[in-house]
C-alpha cells in the first residue's frame, strides 16, 4: 500500500502518461467533441472527428505495443496484453463507426450524442483492459454499460428500442450491483481492492478463505458473466442483440466481450483464483452450460442477429475453458490463447456484422428494419460475391474450420485443455462444435443457394442498378480488407502469435 509521505514519488509521471496515451487521447477527444457540438452541429464533422480520434488512438496504441509493462498509479497497469486487446477494441470501434454512418444519415436530425456515446464506450473499454484495481474495474464497467444502454435504445422509431434498452438497463444495473456486493465481500476478507496478488494469496495460504469470500467471488464473477453473456446469465443477449441497431450489436459482440474477458482474466490471474477448487467448479459448470445451451438454442433461430447472440454465448463458453485449465506454469500461454481466440472471434464477428449492416442498408423495405432473417442471405454469394465471401469466412472462423483464425483459436484452447487433461471439457467442446455446425453450415448453404429473385436481379442489372448493391467505396475497401485479413491471418497465424507473445 502506498502511503502519503512528503517525499513520495509523483502520482503520475511522464512514462505513466505515455503508457495510457491512447486512453488519454480518447478522453481528450471526448471533451473536444463536446466543444465541437457547441460550435457546430454537423453530422459529417462529428463523424470525421470521432474517427480521427479513434484512429490517432489506434496509432498511438500500436506504436506503444513494444513498451514494457507500466504500473500507472494503483488503478491501472498497462502491459502488452492490454495493449493488444485495446487495439482490437479500437479497430472494432472504427468499423462500427463507419457502419453506423449510413443508418444515421437517414435522419434529418444530427446525431452527435451517438458519436459521443461511442467514444465513451471505447474509453470505458480502455479503462477496463488496463485496470489493476477493483475501483477502476467498476469505473470502466459502468462507463461501458451506461453508454451501451444509450446506444442500444438509440433508435426511438424502432419498435424494439424501448424493450431492448430497458432489458439491458435493468439487467445491467442488477449485474453491477451484484458485482459491487461481491467486491465488497472480497474486500472485507482481504482488505485490499487492488488485483495485487500478495494479500489474497497470503491470506489464502494462512487460513483458507471462508464462505464469505467464496460468496463474494461468485457474485463478482456473475456480474462479469452477465456482460460476457455466459449461461445462466445470458437471458438478455438474444433480445438485446436483435433489438439494437446492427453497428451497436457489433460493438456488443466485440468490444464489450473483449474488454470484459480481458479484465476477468487479469483479475483471476493476479488474484490466483484459479487455485480454488470451488471456483473452478463454478466456471466449469458455466462453461459447459454455455457451450451446450448456446449452440442448441441457436439451432432453430430464423433471425440472424438472434442466432449470432446464441452463438456468442457458446463461444464465451469455449473461451472459459482457457481460464479453467490454466496453471501457474502456463500463465503466458493462457494469455496467448485467450487473446488469440478473442482476436479471431472479433475478426469473425466484425466480418459478419459488416455484411449484415450492408445487407440492411440495401433492404429498402424499411429504413430501420432491425430484423435480418436467414432468408435474406439466400444466394448472397451469387448476388454480391465479395459479401458472400466475407460472410463465409466469418462463419467458417466461428465454426473453427481450418484456413481461418477461428481454427487456430480452437487449436489453442484444445492445446490448453489437453495439457491440463481436462477431457470432459474437451468432450463437451467437441459435441458443442458438432451441434454448432448444424446451424453454421445451413447458413453457408443459404449463401450459396440460388438467389430467390434471380429475375429481379436480372432486371436490376438491365436497369443499371447494380451499383446500388455495391455500396460506398470505403465500405468496399472494408469488405475486401477484411477478406484479406481473414485469409492471411488464417493461413499465417504466426503474425498474430508474435504480436501476442511480445
Amino acid at each position, binding site marked *: 500500500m502506498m502511503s502519503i509521505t512528503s517525499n513520495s514519488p509523483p502520482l503520475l509521471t511522464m512514462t505513466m502518461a505515455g503508457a495510457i496515451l491512447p486512453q488519454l487521447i480518447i478522453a481528450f477527444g471526448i471533451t473536444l467533441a463536446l466543444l465541437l457540438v457547441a460550435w457546430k452541429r454537423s453530422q459529417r464533422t462529428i463523424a470525421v472527428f470521432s474517427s480521427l480520434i479513434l484512429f490517432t488512438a489506434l496509432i498511438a496504441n500500436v506504436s506503444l505495443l513494444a513498451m514494457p509493462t507500466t504500473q500507472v498509479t494503483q488503478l491501472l497497469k498497462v502491459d502488452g496484453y492490454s495493449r493488444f486487446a485495446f487495439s482490437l477494441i479500437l479497430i472494432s470501434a472504427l468499423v462500427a463507426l463507419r457502419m453506423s454512418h449510413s443508418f444515421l444519415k437517414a435522419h434529418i436530425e444530427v446525431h452527435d450524442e451517438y458519436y459521443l456515446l461511442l467514444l465513451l464506450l471505447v474509453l470505458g473499454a480502455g479503462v477496463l483492459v488496463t485496470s489493476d484495481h477493483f475501483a477502476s474495474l467498476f469505473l470502466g464497467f459502468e462507463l461501458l454499460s451506461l453508454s451501451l444502454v444509450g446506444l442500444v435504445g438509440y433508435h426511438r422509431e424502432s419498435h424494439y428500442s424501448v424493450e431492448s434498452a430497458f432489458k439491458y438497463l435493468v439487467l445491467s444495473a442488477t449485474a453491477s450491483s451484484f458485482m459491487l456486493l461481491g467486491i465488497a465481500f472480497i474486500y472485507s476478507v482481504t482488505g485490499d481492492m487492488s488485483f495485487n496478488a500478495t494479500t489474497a494469496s497470503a491470506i489464502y495460504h494462512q487460513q483458507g478463505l471462508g464462505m464469505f469470500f467464496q460468496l463474494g467471488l461468485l457474485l463478482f464473477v456473475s456480474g462479469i458473466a452477465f456482460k460476457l453473456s455466459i449461461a445462466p446469465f445470458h437471458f438478455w443477449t438474444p433480445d438485446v442483440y436483435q433489438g439494437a441497431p446492427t453497428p451497436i450489436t457489433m460493438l456488443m459482440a466485440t468490444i464489450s466481450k473483449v474488454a470484459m474477458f480481458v479484465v476477468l482474466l487479469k483479475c483471476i490471474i493476479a488474484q490466483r483464483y484459479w487455485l480454488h477448487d470451488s471456483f473452478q467448479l463454478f466456471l466449469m459448470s458455466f462453461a459447459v452450460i454455455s457451450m451446450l445451451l448456446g449452440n442448441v438454442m441457436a439451432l432453430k433461430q430464423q433471425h440472424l442477429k438472434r442466432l449470432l447472440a446464441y452463438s456468442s454465448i457458446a463461444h464465451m463458453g469455449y473461451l472459459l475453458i482457457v481460464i479453467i485449465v490454466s496453471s501457474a506454469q502456463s500463465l503466458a500461454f493462457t494469455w496467448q490463447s485467450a487473446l488469440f481466440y478473442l482476436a479471431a472471434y472479433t475478426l469473425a464477428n466484425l466480418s459478419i456484422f459488416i455484411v449484415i449492416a450492408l445487407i440492411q442498408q440495401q433492404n429498402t423495405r424499411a429504413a430501420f428494419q432491425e430484423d435480418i432473417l436467414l432468408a435474406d442471405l439466400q444466394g448472397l454469394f451469387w448476388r454480391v460475391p465479395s459479401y458472400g465471401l466475407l460472410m463465409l469466412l466469418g462463419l467458417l472462423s466461428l465454426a473453427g474450420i*481450418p484456413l481461418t483464425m477461428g481454427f487456430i483459436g480452437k487449436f489453442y484452447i*484444445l492445446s490448453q485443455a489437453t495439457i491440463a487433461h481436462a477431457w470432459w471439457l474437451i468432450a463437451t467442446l*467437441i459435441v458443442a462444435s*458438432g451441434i454448432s*455446425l448444424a446451424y453454421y453450415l*445451413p447458413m453457408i448453404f443459404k449463401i450459396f443457394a440460388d438467389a430467390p429473385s434471380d429475375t429481379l436481379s436480372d432486371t436490376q442489372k438491365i436497369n443499371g442498378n447494380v451499383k446500388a448493391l455495391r455500396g460506398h467505396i470505403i465500405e468496399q475497401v472494408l469488405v475486401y480488407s477484411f477478406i484479406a485479413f481473414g485469409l492471411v491471418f488464417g493461413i499465417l497465424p504466426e503474425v498474430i502469435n508474435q504480436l501476442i507473445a511480445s
Partner: protein
Amino acid sequence: MTVTLIMLALVIAGALAWRAETYWQGSAKWLALISLALLATVFAVFVIDYAINHNNDFAQLQVLSRVNWIQTFNIQYSIALDQLSIVLIALTWLLAIICVLVSWHEIKHHVGFYYFNLLLTIAGIIGVFVAVDMFLFFFFWEVMLLPMTAIIAIWGHEKRHFAALKFFIFTQVSSLLMLVAIIATGYFHLLQTGQLSFYYLDWLMLDIPLSMSQYLMLGFFIAFAVKLPSVPLHSWLPDAHTQAPTAGSVLLAGVLLKTGAYGLIRFVISLFPQASTQFAPIAATLAVVSILYGAKMAFAQQDFKRLVAYSSISHMGFVMLALFAFNSVAYQGAIVTMVAHGLSSAALFALAGMIYQRINSRDLADMGGFWQSAPRMGGFALAFAGAAFGLPGLANFIGEFFSLVGVFQVLPEFAVIAALGLIGSAIYGMVLFQSSFQGTPRQDIIDLQPRELIICGSLLLMLLAIGLYPRLLLKFSFGA
C-alpha cells in the same frame, strides 16, 4: 518444392477457370482438363526424375521440403512422398481427369465455381497424401472437405443440403477427435524430449506407453473409420454418394474413402503398432460386419447410386480387415483393393451419372432392358459389375484374394466369414445389372458417346491391366 507448386497451381488454375467462365462460356472445363493433364504429367516427370537422380525407389518416405510455418507450436510445412502416396496420388490424377470428363455436360449452372471447387478438392487430397506434419495433415484434411461439401451442397440432387450437412458433421466431429489426439501426442513429445513437435518422423521415434497410446490410437482410428467408412460410422456415406453430382460421387468413392485407409496405414498402424495390435480383434470384427452389412444393404437398394454406395462400405471393409491382419500379403492385398475399388466404384458411379442424364432417374424400377438400345453401355456395365464382385482377371479379384489369403494366415475365422461377402457382392452385382440392362425394355436410350467411351474405356483398361498383370502394383513393397 515441385509438389507444393503443383498444389498451388491447382488452386490458381481453379481460380482462373472460375474467372474465365464468366468471359467465355465453356472455357472452365477445358482449362480444368488441360491443367489437370499438364500437372499430372509434371508430377509423373518429377517422381521419375527424382527416382533416377537420387537412385531411390521411394520405399521409405522421402522428405521433400520442410519449412517453418507456425513457430509458436513448432509446426512446419513438411511434405514427403513414398510408394503408397505416389500410387494414391496417381489414382487421384486419373480420377480427377475422369471427374472433369463426367461433368462435361452435367454441370449447367455456376460452372466456373464448380471447377474451382473440384480443383481445390484435388489439391487438398494431394496435400493429405504428402503431408508429414500432423498439423499440416489436419489442415489438408479439412481443405479437401470444404470444397467437397460445397460440391455436394450446390450441385447435388434433391436432398443435397441434408446430405452435405451429414457428411460434414460426421467428418468434422470425428476429425476433432483426431485433432485432440494430434495435440496430445504433440505434447507427449514435449514431455518426453522437451520439444513440442508435430513432425511425423519425430513421432515415429516416440515410445508411448500402451495405457496412453490406446486412447490416442482411438482418436485417429475413429476419424479414419468415419472416412473409410466402417460400420457403425457409415451412415453419412449412402446419403452423400446418392445426393452428390456424378463427379462428386466418383471423387468420394474413388479417392476420399482412400484417405481413410491411407490414414489407417500411415498413422494408426505405424504410430501406434502396439495399441493397434491390441485393438485388431475389434477392428477386424467391425470390418467383417461392414463387409456383410454393406453387401446385405446393397442388395436391398432400389437406387442405383445408393446400391453402389453400400457396396463401397462392403469393399472398404476388406481393406480394413486386411490392414488389421498385420501380414504383408494382406497388406499388399489391401493396397490393390484400394486402387481397384477406386477404379471400379468410380466407373459404376460414372455409369450411374450417364444413365441419370438419359432418363433423369436413379431408380432401378425405372430402368430395364437398356441392353437393347445401348449394348456398348451394357457391356461396360457388365464388366464393371463383374469387377465389383471380384471376377478373376479384373483388379478387384487380385485385391480381395490377396487380402483373404493374408488374413487367413492370421485370423482364419474372420477370413471365412468375410469370404461370404463375395457371394453377397455377386448377388447385388447381378441385381444391379439385371434390373438395369436386362428384362423388357422400358425405354430407349442413346448409347455411349465418344467422351463416355473414353471414360469407361480407360477405367476398364486400368482394371484389366492390374487384374492381368498384378505385378504392376505388387512389385512395390509399400514400406511393409
